[in-house]
């Protein structure tokens, strides 16, 4: 049973002189938008307030708790039909959302359910603040996630537009197509870009992970002279602005003939990924019990065996998540590639960047959707690894 199911304050029917005006006000607020979209804001406000006041009265006073299920379905149906009448399929969807929300809202307010999980001694002002605060936080979460959500449906656009077409809003199947995905997966410009990225990122990751893990193990031992300075140098690729790293690498790598070569980009990406490996592996090593390696040594294992059989399995989650960070760094890196890459070595981010700057093609959105899917998978993996690592080290019971 999770905490949120516990009822702290008893609920019951509230005085309608409070609830009905509150619900009507909410209706008026929603009415602003419906009214504005249909031409008359004032009519929307008044209509919304009256409609919701009537519905609230019916639900709370007449139907009560026993009729809740029926009332909510009824409201849902009413809004759906109303929405469909105003704005066809798009209206239907909006209507369904409004109907579901108000059905829930009327009972939530009307029967004092909003206080169920709060301590009883809170003043009304505190309750109001509690929920306003959550609404504010909700808005910030919407801000965080909306841009990522928005690109997904747009990538199925049948037109070469960067915005929703009327067909899409009508949920007309003709407004949607997979043509941008077809372009993404067949156009040689994009496929070779993906291929280049896939050739560069794993090698760069391998270099950063192997060198980074060794160094993190070395740094985690006590008595390392100049530890702070070494750490500062190793973390610096993350801190120094990419444009400066790219400028310096462009000058220096052109001197030693690495500009425009595969290995030039691999080395640059490897060094950019190193801070992430160092940080994650060092964090994992903080919880590592040194007596385990001593015990292994005591039983006759040589340092190499100890490392691979005892230490490595325990820090593996940290190493893998560091590797994922390094991989995504390389896979996502564009500034350095722009400077030290060449036409044959265009990576996926390069292709997206030039696409955004020069020719605007919605194929970018298809690429973006594919990348978001990849990041969801990577995020899930890192989260899993983190939990596993904490479990291994006995830091959480989960």
């Amino acid at each position, binding site marked *: 049973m999770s905490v949120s199911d516990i009822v702290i304050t008893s609920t019951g029917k509230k005085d309608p002189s409070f609830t009905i005006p509150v619900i009507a006000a909410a209706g008026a607020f929603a009415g602003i938008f419906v009214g504005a979209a249909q031409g008359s804001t004032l009519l929307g406000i008044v209509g919304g307030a009256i409609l919701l006041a009537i519905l609230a009265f019916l639900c709370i006073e007449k139907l009560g708790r026993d009729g809740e299920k029926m009332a909510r379905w009824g409201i849902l149906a009413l809004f759906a039909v109303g929405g469909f009448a105003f704005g066809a399929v798009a209206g239907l969807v909006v209507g369904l959302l409004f109907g579901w929300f108000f059905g829930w809202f009327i009972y939530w307010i009307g029967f004092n359910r909003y206080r169920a999980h709060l301590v009883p001694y809170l003043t009304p002002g505190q309750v109001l603040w509690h929920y306003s605060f959550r609404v504010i936080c909700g808005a910030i979460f919407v801000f*965080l996630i909306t841009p990522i959500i928005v*690109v997904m449906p747009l990538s199925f656009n049948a037109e070469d537009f960067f915005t929703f077409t009327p067909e899409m809003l009508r949920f007309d199947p003709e407004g949607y197509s997979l043509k941008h995905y077809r372009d993404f997966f067949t156009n040689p410009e994009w496929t070779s870009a993906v291929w280049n990225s896939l050739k560069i990122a794993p090698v760069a990751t391998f270099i950063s992970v192997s060198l980074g893990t060794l160094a993190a193990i070395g740094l985690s031992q006590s*008595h390392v002279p100049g530890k702070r300075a070494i750490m500062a140098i190793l973390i610096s690729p993350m801190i120094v602005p990419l444009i400066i790293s790219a400028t*310096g690498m462009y000058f*220096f790598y052109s001197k030693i003939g690495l500009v425009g070569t595969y290995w030039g980009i691999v080395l640059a990406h490897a060094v950019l990924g190193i801070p992430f490996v160092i940080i994650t592996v060092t964090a994992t090593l903080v919880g590592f019990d040194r007596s385990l390696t001593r015990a292994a040594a005591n039983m006759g294992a040589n340092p190499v065996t100890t490392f691979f059989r005892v230490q490595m399995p325990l820090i593996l989650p940290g190493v893998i998540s560091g590797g994922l960070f390094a991989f995504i760094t390389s896979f*996502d890196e564009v500034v350095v590639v722009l*400077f030290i890459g060449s036409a044959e070595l265009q990576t996926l981010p390069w292709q997206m960047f030039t696409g955004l700057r020069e020719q605007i093609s919605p194929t*970018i959105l298809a690429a973006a959707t594919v990348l978001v899917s990849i990041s969801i998978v990577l995020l899930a993996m890192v*989260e899993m690894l983190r939990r596993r690592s904490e479990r291994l080290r006995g830091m959480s019971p989960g």
Partner: protein
Amino acid sequence: MTHSTTEPANFTGAAPKAGPMLAADGRPLKKSLARALRRQKLRALMLVAPLLIFVLVTFIAPIADMLFRSVENQIVSETLPETVMALQEWNGESDIPDAAYDAIYFDLFTAAEAKQHTRLGTRLNYEQTGISSLFRTSGRQLDDIGDDVHDALEDINPAWDEPAPWYQMMNAGDRPVDTALLDTKMFDMRALTGEVLEGDLGFAPAREVSDLLPRTAAAYTSWAIYTALVDGDIVAEEDPWESVFAALASDLQSGADVSGYSGPGADMLAEAAANLDALPAVDFRNVMVGIDEDWGALENWQTIKLYSPDYTPGYFLNSVDMQNGIDGAQMRPENERIYITLFIRTLYLSLVITGSCILLSYPVAFLLSNLPARSANLLMILVLLPFWTSLLVRTSAWKVMLQQQGVINDVLVWLGLVADDSRLVMINNQTGTIIAMTHILLPFMILPMYSVMSTIPPYYVRAAKSLGATNWTAFWRVYFPQSIPGIGAGSILVFILAIGYYITPEIVGGTKGVFISNRIAYHISSSLNWGLAAALGTILLAVVLILYWAYDRIVGIDNVKLG
């Protein structure tokens, strides 16, 4: 392991019988311990060493190279070595010395043959507009005077048109060699072409001739080195550059006494000296000013003199809107100042972005740290997903959202909040940069704040409230001070990241919303003023390193957490 250590007194000999405590192998325990410790240190260093070397070579060395480039200025002394020397004595105000005109004719001629003069012109053009075209046009016309002399000499004696007599006259053969001249010219040519230049030259200047005809010998030596080692031809079989002819005329006209000379080509020289009137007058001041009257202008020579040292503060002065003058550094005219504005704008926008990140992150971090673990973890995914999503995806998403025909404007128009003909302009200006970068950097603020806030014990606030504090007082006087480390850590991190951003401003910033990074990229890839790019980068790097140092002191670099 070290629970029994011996008293120091045991080593002083006060108690000789006790002796130092011994380890299993018979060594004194103290030494044994020190050795083990040393080994441990060494092993740790050996584990760190490969990575440290890797980072030093692939990352720190490039940065150092960039720092070096921001002051490096060898191009002037490499391309115009003689001119730089000739200008050393000049005070920059008086008349330009004749020696400078002599020197620049030959320097420029050699540079034009090696196709390096336009490179120098471009370099000096950063400091003095117009020099680039002066160098380019002059490079094409330097042959003219030599051609005239060539024709005149040929009329006197057709042998002047042959390569062989020239070679016999100039080459030392059995005569003493002017090694100083050869070494100087060799050094200059290496610097000019940037090549190693090894191989058989097949020529050595005769000291006899170089004493008699210094300019001719110098010009011929330069030509010989170029012909043999750059072009790979045989010196004795090629026609010399026209500059050699001009040099000969100049040497003869300035009173070289060829009567005492008896080496190869003595008769040819005597013949030419006898017919001096038939040769066109070669005065390099007139030659240069004749090619382009700008060679008479004082400011062009001042620019060359000012930028003749191997290291210059010029790029740094340019990057703070100043310029190097003969009287010292001074501000550029008002209408040419762009970099200070750009630096201020970069700092200002970074501050605004950091500020809006604080405002948006604080409530979220507070909520996350006060929710039960399961809900907090779920909501955390909403924070981490943008963090894990490609930067370009997020930037393109904002481009989609903010355009005038984009999603936000469409929604506002649909809701009737904005008229269709007055859609908001939210992209290609500072608003676009601020919105998009706030979104992109928000996770870097939320994560450190969250990790600090989740360690704040809840009972302090409860205690404050039970002592009669209002909600606001309890928050402001008790909770907020404890959360400041999180704000500090997040702010420095976001500010450091924001100040060096390039991709997002480039795509959504238009012209008013770009950062100093965009200018650096412009100088690297479009204007090719690499020195200025390096100087701007160095200033930016200095700001970032100061902040990095502060971050290390306040937060500790090993306390950075990812996800």
